[in-house]
C-alpha cells in the first residue's frame, strides 16, 4: 500500500546481451531487467513487482555502447539504454526527429530524465508512455534479442495491452530504428498535463506529417495517441482520411474528429474523463496538423 524499502533480491550484472538472455532463460518470470530503474524500483518498493532476480542491463556493453547513431541512409538508431536526458540533448533528434525531442522535454523531471531510458519506457508499455506515441508516429522498429537471436518488430505491432507486449520473458530490447523522415516533413508530440512538468499524460498526440512538394497535398501521415486506449495506439482512421488529400482547415477538423471519436478509446478515470480526453485529442490533432503544415511550408520557403 505504502512505499517501502526494496525487498530482497539477487542482483546480476551481465557483461553482454547474450549473457542477459541466458540469465532470463534461467530465471524466467522470477527475473526483471533493470535499466533506468525509475519504474521498476518504485514498483518493487510498492511490492507491485517482487522479482527474485534483478538483472542490471547497463553493464551489457553491446547495448550500452550503441548510443544515438545517425546512419548514412539518414536513419536514426537509438540504443535501448539511451537516457531521456541524452535524447533531449541530441542535435539530430532536436532538428530532424522533433517529436522525440518534444517527448523528452515533457518527460518526468530532469532527475528522472537523467536515469530513465527509452528502452525502459517502451518495455514498460504503459498506455501513457511518453515515447510510445512519438516512436509510433515515426514508424519505428524495435530490435530485440532473444533465444533465437536478433529480430526486428515494427512498434505498431509491439503493444498488446496495458504493460503487455509481444516480448517473451527471454527477450531484451537492444535498440530502436527510426526510418529517415521524408523531405517535406516534420513531427511533434503534444501532451496534456495537469501541470507544466512532472506529470503523466491525460492524453497525448504525436503526429508525423509529410507533404508533397506543393506543401499542400499529404504524402504521408502517421498519428499516434497516448492514454487513449489500453495501449499506445495508431489512429489509422484519421490517417486514412488525410493521406493523399490536400490539407485544408475543413479536412483537419474532419481528421481530428475521426481520431478523437473513431480511433481513440479512452476511459474515464480520476485523471480525466473519456469525454475530456476525446476533446483534448481532437484539439491536439488539429493543433499538431496546423502547426506542422505551416512549419513544413515555412521551411520549404526558406529553402527556395
Amino acid at each position, binding site marked *: 500500500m505504502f512505499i*517501502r524499502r526494496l525487498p530482497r533480491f539477487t542482483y546480476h550484472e551481465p557483461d553482454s546481451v547474450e549473457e542477459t538472455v541466458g540469465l532470463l532463460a534461467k530465471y524466467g518470470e522470477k527475473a526483471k531487467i533493470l535499466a533506468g530503474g525509475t519504474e521498476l524500483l518504485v514498483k518493487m518498493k510498492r511490492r507491485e513487482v517482487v522479482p527474485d532476480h534483478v538483472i542490471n542491463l547497463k553493464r551489457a556493453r553491446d547495448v550500452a555502447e550503441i548510443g544515438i547513431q545517425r546512419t548514412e541512409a539518414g536513419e536514426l538508431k537509438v540504443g535501448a539504454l539511451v537516457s531521456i536526458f541524452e535524447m533531449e540533448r541530441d542535435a539530430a533528434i532536436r532538428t530532424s526527429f522533433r517529436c522525440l525531442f518534444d517527448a523528452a522535454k515533457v518527460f518526468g523531471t530532469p532527475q528522472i530524465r537523467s536515469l530513465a531510458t527509452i528502452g525502459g519506457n517502451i518495455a514498460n508499455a504503459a498506455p501513457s508512455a511518453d515515447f510510445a506515441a512519438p516512436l509510433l508516429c515515426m514508424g519505428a522498429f524495435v530490435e530485440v534479442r532473444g533465444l533465437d537471436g536478433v529480430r526486428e518488430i515494427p512498434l505498431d505491432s509491439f503493444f498488446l495491452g496495458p504493460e503487455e507486449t509481444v516480448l517473451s520473458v527471454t527477450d531484451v530490447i537492444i535498440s530502436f530504428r527510426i526510418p529517415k523522415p521524408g523531405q517535406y516533413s516534420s513531427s511533434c508530440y503534444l501532451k496534456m498535463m495537469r501541470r507544466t512538468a512532472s506529470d503523466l499524460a491525460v492524453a497525448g498526440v504525436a503526429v508525423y506529417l509529410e507533404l508533397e512538394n506543393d506543401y499542400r497535398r499529404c504524402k504521408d501521415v502517421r498519428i499516434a495517441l497516448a492514454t487513449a486506449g489500453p495501449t499506445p495506439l495508431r489512429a489509422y482512421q484519421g490517417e486514412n482520411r488525410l493521406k493523399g488529400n490536400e490539407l485544408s482547415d475543413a479536412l483537419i477538423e474532419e481528421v481530428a474528429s475521426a481520431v478523437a471519436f473513431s480511433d481513440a478509446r479512452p476511459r474515464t478515470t480520476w485523471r480525466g474523463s473519456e469525454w475530456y480526453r476525446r476533446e483534448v485529442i481532437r484539439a491536439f490533432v488539429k493543433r499538431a496538423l496546423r502547426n506542422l503544415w505551416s512549419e513544413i511550408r515555412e521551411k520549404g520557403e526558406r529553402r527556395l
Partner: protein
Amino acid sequence: MKWVGKSVERKDARVKVTGQAKYADDLYAPGMLYCKMLRSPVSHARILNIDVSRAKALPGVKAVVTGKDFPGIPFGVRPDTRDQLSMPITKIHHFGEGLVAVAAVDEDTAEEALDLIRVEYEELPPILSIDDALNPDLPPVNEFRSTNIAYESHFEFGDVEQGFRKADYIKEETFTSQRVSVGFIEPHACLAQVDASGRILLQASKQSPYITWRHICRALDIPLSKLRIVNPYVGGAFSGKHDPFDIDFAVIKLAQLTGRPVKAVLTYDEVLAAYRQRNSMRVTMKIGAKKDGTITALEARCYLQGGPYSGIGPFNVYFFGAFLPVPYKVPAVRYDGYLLYSNLPPCGTVRGQEIVLSQYARDVLLDIVAADLDLDPVEMRLKNAVDSGYRTVNGIYIDVSGLKDCIKKVAERIGWENHKKTKRPNVGIGFSCAGHPSGPRLGGHFGSSVVIKLEEDGKVIVTHGGTELGQGVNTVMCQIVAEVLGIDYEDVLPGVSDSDTTIFDSGMFGDRCTFWTGNAAIRAAEDLKRQLAEIVAKDLGCSPEELVFENRAIYSAKNPEKKVDFLLAARRAYYEYGQPLYGRGYWAATDIEIVDWKTGKGNLTHGISFIATAVEVEVDPETGVVRPTRVACAKDSGQPINPMLLDGQVIGGTVHALGHALYEQVLYDDKGRILNYTWRDYKQPVSMDVPEFVVDHIITTDPYGPFGAKGGGETSTCSTLAAVVNAVHDATGLWIKDLPVTPEKVLRGLKDMKG
C-alpha cells in the same frame, strides 16, 4: 534604521544551501532503533483484535505497541473537543491510520515485522460527505462523540434583516472547495530518547512545539517537566505540524519500553494519505448591496468537512466567520459555521487558515455582484475597503489600513485600465483582497518571550519562543535585536528552540511571530541595554538614561566623547563585575479580549494586515487549461522588517494557493481510500507553473507592532483563490464556483455556454 527594513541574508541560508542543516531525519543517537507503522487499509471499522505475537518474535524486533499501550486519555485543542487518542484502541477512523508501531534494529526488519501482524476488524459504513455527516442515521465517526457535527458557531452582528431590506440587490451563491494537502517539503520525523530518570527527550519536526508538548503530556498523563522538546531545523510546516502524531507517541512509548532511542521518519506517501489536510468546504453565502456597490449585509452558512478528529477545526470555524467582514466594511453579518467529522484523513489547516476559504467565497461573490450591477471590480473594492481606525461589526479594530493603496497599486501594476480597453481574447484579470491577523489572542498561555544572552566577545544569542519553520523568524528576531542594541546583524546569533531553556510561544500560527515575538525581542533587548547601561554609566560618569547604543558602541547623548565599545562593555560586565548578562522580555496583547468562538464576540487581534492580489490568466478555449501568467501583489504589512523575506512569503503563499485554485485535490474512492497519495499524482504546482510576479509593499506603521510591523506570511494565500476564479470569469464569462478550476470544468463550461 540600520537593520530593520533591510533585506539581510538569512541566518540559516548557508547551512541550508550547503546541506549542513540537521533536520529530524538527520539525527542519530547511539543504539537507535527504527520505528515503522502498520496502517489501515480501510477507512472505518471496529477493531476486533490485533495479534502482534509473530512480529514480536521476529529477530531484531525490540518492541511493538498499539493504542492499548497508552493511558487512553484523549487530547484536543479545547476542553470540549478532546477526541483524539495517542493511537486508536477500538476503532479505525481513516485510511492509512497508524494501528501498530514496531521498533527494530533497522528499517528492513521493522517493515518485515509489519507483514506478520494480523488485524481483525469489522468494517463500518464510511462517512465521506457533508451530507453523510448531517445524516443522523449514520454511525458517529468519533468514539467520544454521539454526532458527526464536531463543532458549531453562530454569529450575528448588526441588523442583518435591515441590511438586506436596504439592499438594492441581493445575491446568493453556493461555493465549494476541495480537500488539499498541506505541502511542506519535510515529511514528519521524530526521535525519542528516555533517560534512566524517565525523562523524555523528543526531537521532532514541529511547528508549534508548545502544542505538541501540552498534548503529549496530557495523553501520556505525565507532568510537563517529564518531557523536553528540542526542535531541529524544520522543513516547512504551513499548519501541518502543530499536533503530536501517532509516530510521536509511538517513538516515545517504544523508547520507554526498550530503553533505547527510537526514530521514525514517514515516507511522503504516508503524509499525503494519512496526515493533516485542509477541510473541504461548502458555503452558501448571501450578500446585499446598494446600486453603487456598497455592501449592506452578508450571510453565510458554512460546512467544513474535517476528518475523524476536531484538531484545530473549531478555530477554523471561528476564523471563517470572523473574517467575513474583513477587509470590507460590512454593517451586518450572520454566520452559521459547522465542523463535521468524516472518515477521511484528519484536518488541521493550511497557511492562512480558513480565512483563505471565507475570502475566496466572499471575493468571488463580490465580483458576481459587480458584474451584475455593471460595476468595476476595482472600484467596488475601493468603495468597500476598510480604513484606518475602523471597528468591524464583529468588534475587530483596524488601527491602520493601507488596503486602498494596495488595491490601486495592483490595478496599476497589472495594467487594469489598459486591459479593459484592449480586451485580449482568452486573457483575463481577476482581483481579490484579504485581511489577516498578526497573531490572535487565545485562551491559556498566550504570551511570547525572548531571552538574549550576552557573550564575552560582544555577541548576543537570541533564544525565542517562536519556531523557525523556514519563514525566517530567526533572521527577523536577529535584525530587531541588532537594531535595539545598536550592534551589527552579524553580532546576533539565533539560539536553539528547547523547552528547557525557551518559553515557547503558545503556537506558531496566524502570522504571530514577527508581531508578538518581535515585540518580546524588543523588550528583551531593552532589558539587556538597561543592565549594560548601568555598568557603563558608572565608568563613564553619567546617568544610564542618557546612554545611546549605536554602531557597536555606547555613548552619552549629552557628551558623545563619553563612549565605550559595546565589546568592552560586555567584557567589563563579565570581568570587572562578574555579571554575565541576560536580557529578558515578553509580550502579550492583554488589552484585547479572548474571543468567544461560539458567538464570535471579541477583538481577536492587533495588527490586521492587508493584501490586494491581481492575477492574469490565459485560458486555452480548446482544452480548458488555465495558465496564470502574471501576478501583482501589494501588501500592507506595516513596516517590513526584512522586505526580501516578506517578498518570499507573499510569492510563496500565492503559489501555494495557485495549487489550491488550479491543481490540487485529495481524491478518494467510495470506501474512503485515498487515490492520489504520491507527489506524481497529487498535483502541487512545480517551479514551471510559477507565473511572473510583482510584489509591492505599502508601508504603514502599526501602533502595536515592532517598529510598526504587522504579520505578512499568510495573507497572500487568502487573496489568491478568488483572484484566479475572477480572472477566469474575466477571460471566459464563466463562474467556476467549485474548486479546483480544472481544465475539464472550464471546457465543459465553455461548451455549455455555447449551447
